């Protein structure tokens, strides 16, 4: 018998389980602003977030996002700085940061996020194979953060990925290299497969006759982040990437 079930053993895959505390450290109490310098922009962003809520703690996630943007991940120092501004213990924020998938607590340089959905619909349509291809394409590049992700909410373009927040799909194996190339070149990634340009498939949406108003110039250097702006709508490139045939009795497969 070949036992290949992943086993928990000493040196578990869960970071932290096997770690004792460092007894030479002081207890991590609420950091005193007098002894915890915080970069001015980070402080301003955290304070702006806190101002939006009746309870300042609500800003924990936005504040950690901000720290992650500065340090590449929620570093212990970054967390301590957030804690100093929010008047919380660093442990409170560590607890929050480790709960959420989009907050990184393992050291990581500033990087590109490539999240590949490997949940049911995507994997039915080949996501696992694409994930392997993507890992291969990224190679050992530390600035490429390729990970499989649970359902990203875009099964209509399965298999799909979120690259630095941009949803793209349906993906083919060859797209993996294209993603790496686009990221390296600083281009919009697979712009013809971005979900911002995808039209509704619902025949009732009544948009079939306006199909030409959607789309994007292939390989366009600049993509309007507002998504559905009129500039894009007026572009002359017809035909979106996604299939736009609408069902009718005639073309229904038997």
């Amino acid at each position, binding site marked *: 018998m070949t036992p*290949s079930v*992943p086993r928990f053993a000493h040196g578990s895959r869960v970071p932290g389980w096997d770690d004792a505390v460092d007894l030479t450290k002081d207890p991590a109490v609420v950091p005193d602003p007098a002894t915890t310098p915080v970069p001015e922009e980070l402080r301003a962003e955290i304070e702006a977030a806190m101002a939006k*809520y009746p309870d300042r703690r609500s800003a924990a996630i936005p504040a950690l996002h901000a720290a992650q943007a500065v340090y590449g991940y929620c570093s212990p120092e970054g967390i301590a700085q957030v804690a100093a501004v929010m008047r919380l213990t660093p442990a409170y924020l560590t607890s929050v940061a480790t*709960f959420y998938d989009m*907050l990184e607590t393992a050291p990581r340089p500033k990087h590109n996020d490539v999240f590949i959905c490997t949940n049911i619909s995507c994997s039915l349509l080949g996501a696992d194979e694409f994930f392997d291809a993507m890992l291969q394409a990224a190679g050992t590049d530390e600035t490429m953060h390729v990970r499989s992700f*649970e359902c990203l909410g875009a099964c209509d373009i399965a298999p799909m990925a979120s690259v630095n927040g941009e949803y793209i799909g349906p993906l083919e194996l060859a797209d993996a290299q294209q993603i790496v190339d686009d990221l390296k070149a600083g281009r919009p990634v697979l712009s013809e497969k971005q*979900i911002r340009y995808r039209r509704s498939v*619902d025949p009732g949406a009544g948009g079939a006759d306006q199909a030409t108003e959607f789309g994007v110039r292939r390989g366009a250097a600049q993509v309007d982040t507002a998504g559905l*702006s009129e500039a894009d709508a007026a572009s002359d490139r017809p035909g979106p990437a996604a299939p736009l045939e609408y*069902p009718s009795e005639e073309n229904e497969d038997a």
Partner: protein
Amino acid sequence: MKTILFDNIDEPGLNTLEVYERRGGYQALRKALSMSREDVLSEIMDSGIRGRGGAGFEMGRKVSFLPHGDMEKYLVCNADESEPGTFKDRELMQKSPHMLIEGIVIAAYAGEIARAFIYIRGEYQLQADILEAAIAEAQRAGYIGQDILASGMNLPLVLHRGAGAYICGEETGLLDSLEGKRGNPRLKPPFPAIEGLYHGPTLINNVETLSTVPAILNMGAAEYAKIGTESSTGTKLVSISGDVKRPGNYEIELGIPSREIIYGLAGGPPSGKEVKFWFPGGSSSPVLTKDDLDVPYDFDSLAKAGTMLGSGAIIVADESRRVLDTALKLAKFYAHESCGKCVPCREGTNWTHKMLQRIYTGEATPMDLDIMASVQEQIIGNCLCVLGDAMAMPIGSMVAKFRDELEGEIEAARERADGAPLEDVVALGVADEQAGPMPVH
């Protein structure tokens, strides 16, 4: 059928206030503000609209549970669309954000609520950016903020981005997350309508539900209630994906046969294949088979069929697919997303995941299927929130409906792995059911 939510949804610039207003946007809000709060509430009640997030609870009744009086009350729009297979709110928010904002303001008016939040999953960055821009526009135009349309009503609206956790779609997990904590579900009661966000009474509704509210006001509750069936009124966005030709969101009238959605709208599986099994309401719903394709797609009919409408997400798997693959994905997903707070869910999802892995490696016996079924029963109804049930119900249904296939998988994997013949296997750790508990001295 007339579309309500998706009516000309691809119109360029619909995400801007200008186009939305040109199409009659925010007229429902003006109308609502000219009515009494009670009248707006009865419109929502009379429309019969049920929550589109998963639980299917009547929205009007939810609003009516809010206590009256001088207190901080909150409205939270649940835009943490994370149920596998579901992507309807994404398209709504991206293409018609003002419809949602208008719905929020009207619902807040009906519930005498003075502060609102949209909790959007962190992965939806494009949609969040669009919503943020729309909120700013609506603010400038006086549709939210202070003294809305000179009516005296105040409603600050804040967009809150999550950070990646399925459990935050559960309403109380969402509240904890919005309060800046880990997204652990809370004990109920108290229900959020009595004690929710920051301990205040809180109305929580899904994006689709709230986006429908302006239409209800515009067309009138009675007219809206005529759509659909008696207990499932209105239209519903259905996200369909997997083995179909035209995956995507379709707005349907509740009560149409499921076949019409899977085959009629989405085109069915690619040529030559038949449907093997399908999830009717997201990955949490017990699976149905090709024999169930004529079940009407509405809340009650699906419940009668032993499953649920859930978030209205259909995932189709054709006959070329293995049930085991999907079961493993499912168990892995729920084990990953279990928050870990309560025991049956935390341990049960992981145990199930490990048992399924053992089938692949040829280390399982058919008795494991019995144990797996029993473990699902031990989870159902015993957890703090519904996440445990959300795995146990579909897995349980797969074991029940595809037992033969799974036994075949076990057998085949054992052969591949060169395992001992089944009859020689002593079921380790399984005590004789008849032996009873340990002797008590």
